């Protein structure tokens, strides 16, 4: 009696073809299955996140919408504040340009040297305003951008002795006349031939003094521009 060698063959015949039959039959489909499950989980996670973000966004949008009226009111208030403060700056600029000449002119009457007769006292008109736009095609400016104006103070008089005119110049150097006379810019004198003189009498002299006045600045405080 021959005894065949005992062999427990747990594999089916077809499975002998594959070098790794278990991987092909089980592992690969399982991996593919888990990949599909992973995709579903991934999508689910994204979907949940989106719902959460959308929900937050909606509640935030509702909150913002509820405050729209208050925001509009605050914006209108802001626009009004900007307009009013711009008006105020312009009027502050005007106030900065207001000058007091009364005390200096009153002091002039008190301090004028004896022997001088004032004939004419003039504060000149300011120069014309430049409202030309930067380009000819643009509309004219709504206001000048230059905040500085210059004027002159001229004084004409008659004196028996030219020495008195010199005294007047010395007087006008006093700081109390600073609002009127900053710097002497011109002077001339001539004999007064209009009136007849007696024999042995000297002919009076007509003099003309011209001073540059301090620049008048319309720059509002805090935004002052120094005179050029």
């Amino acid at each position, binding site marked *: 009696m021959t005894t065949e060698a005992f062999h427990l063959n747990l594999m*089916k015949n077809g499975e002998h*073809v*594959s070098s790794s*039959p278990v991987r*092909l*039959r089980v592992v*690969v489909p399982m991996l*593919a299955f888990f990949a*599909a499950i992973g*995709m579903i989980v991934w*999508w689910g996670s*994204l*979907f949940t996140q*989106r719902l959460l*973000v*959308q929900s937050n*966004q909606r509640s*935030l949008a509702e909150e*913002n919408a509820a*405050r729209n009226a*208050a*925001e509009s009111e*605050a914006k209108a*208030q802001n*626009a*009004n*504040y*900007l*307009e*009013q*403060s*711009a*008006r*105020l*700056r*312009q*009027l502050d*600029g*005007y*106030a900065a340009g*207001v*000058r007091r*000449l*009364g005390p200096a002119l009153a002091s002039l*009457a008190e301090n004028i040297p004896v022997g001088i007769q004032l*004939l*004419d*006292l*003039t*504060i000149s*008109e300011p120069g014309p*305003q430049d409202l030309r736009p930067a380009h000819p095609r643009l509309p004219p400016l*709504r*206001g000048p*951008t230059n905040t500085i104006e210059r004027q002159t103070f001229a004084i004409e008089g008659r004196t028996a002795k030219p020495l008195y005119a010199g005294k007047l110049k010395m007087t006008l150097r006093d700081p109390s006349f600073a609002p009127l006379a900053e710097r002497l810019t011109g002077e001339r004198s001539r004999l007064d031939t209009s009136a007849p003189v007696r024999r042995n009498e000297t002919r009076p002299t007509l003099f003309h003094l011209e001073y540059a006045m301090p620049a008048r600045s319309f*720059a*509002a405080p*805090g*935004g002052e*521009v120094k005179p050029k």
Partner: protein
Amino acid sequence: MKTDFFDNMAPNAQRGFITALIFAAVSVALYMFAVVPEQGALERARRAFAEEETNKSRIDSILKNATDEKNRLAETIHRLRIYHEALLERKLGNYATHARELLDPLALGAGLVEIDYPETSIRKLPLPDARFPMSPAQLHVRATVRMTAHGSYQSAISFLLRVEKELPLVAIQSLRIAASRTDPRRQDITFVFEWPALDDTIPPATPHAGRR
């Protein structure tokens, strides 16, 4: 050759291979038609949320400043009122009528006579300077009023001192005091005064709607 490979597979392996292919196809389909669109939707939702958050912080900031700004506005309006009370107004179509009402009592009190108010041109006030480039919708001008009179130098200066005291926003633009040829005590006096006034010569510009 591929077919041979598949044919040579054991039937179970073939089933496994097909199952794997199906799941792989399902995975790819899920990625392409579910995950990728969902990522886009989530990105859009995040952007919308970020936008709302920006809006919220902007509104918070506006509302936070609103109280301070309300106080500043009240202070500005209070300061403007001082100017507005001093503005020269057109009466009977000109500024001189209003100026006459204000100046005549002072001029007569100072002893000036033969007072007249011829019309003069208007000068525009400079726009707020370069550090504050915003120009107001409602501009103001320097309304100028020429006043001629006769009297002594002392009367003219007395009048000027009164004007400067009583009307602090009135400025003297130009002046001429000339001795009369006929009477040395009498002077021909010309003042050009200027007042702040509303500019009604040009239409107001667009206001600063919501500008910050």
